[in-house]
């Protein structure tokens, strides 16, 4: 019983954190259409490439543009990757029965 309550509490905290995270970047809120071609104009791919090539170094401070993108512009994606890694480690430990 106590354990179930603990899990519910954890779930609630995580859900609240998720809502705060989503609402902190307003484009992800539901009910708000995000059409890049309309908002930013045509030729988006070329202009994105140009932006990264010309300004990414001074904006992020990293010479390695791959790092600048996956830890700067797309750090959310990296957060998901680390979560996947933590979960896979937990899964391997659980399946192999290697408890402390």
């Amino acid at each position: 019983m106590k354990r179930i309550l603990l899990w519910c509490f954890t779930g609630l905290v995580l859900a609240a954190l998720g809502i705060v995270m989503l609402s902190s970047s307003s484009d992800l809120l539901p009910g708000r259409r995000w059409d890049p071609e309309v908002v930013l104009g045509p030729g988006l791919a070329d202009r994105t490439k140009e932006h990264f090539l010309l300004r990414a170094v001074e904006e992020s401070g990293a010479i390695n543009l791959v790092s600048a993108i996956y830890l700067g512009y797309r750090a959310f994606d990296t957060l998901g990757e680390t979560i996947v890694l933590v979960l896979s480690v937990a899964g391997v430990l659980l399946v192999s029965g290697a408890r402390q």
Partner: protein
Amino acid sequence: MKESTIVDLVSRKLVPYILLFGLYLISYGHLSPGGGFQGGVVLSSAVLLLCLARGVNATRLLFTSRTVGVLEIAAFTLFLVMAAAGMAVGVSFLGNFLPVGRIGEVPSAGFILFLNLVIGLEVGAGITLICFALLKED
């Protein structure tokens, strides 16, 4: 199992340099090819080399699974805390609020260097834990 002197000696000489190379990959991730994921895997490959050459049980005395597990979770928590700290400071979630510094030097690029360090520790500890779980000595 028959012990080989060559494998024993070479692996023990090689492990510190592999660890150093992993740390180099992590800390230069924003300047040259490399970064947290790659450097972390190199770090754990040093531990794996020790496991294969000296045996898992001997290695686990040096890198206890408790230490490695705590390191893994601590690095991940630090990632989340610093990501959420961006909201508290005033930029977005995972926004760069640290000073960028002079471009091209090792302590530069604020948040990116920090994220590289944290991810490197986390990946290294995670892969090491997986290796510990999968390798068992009779």
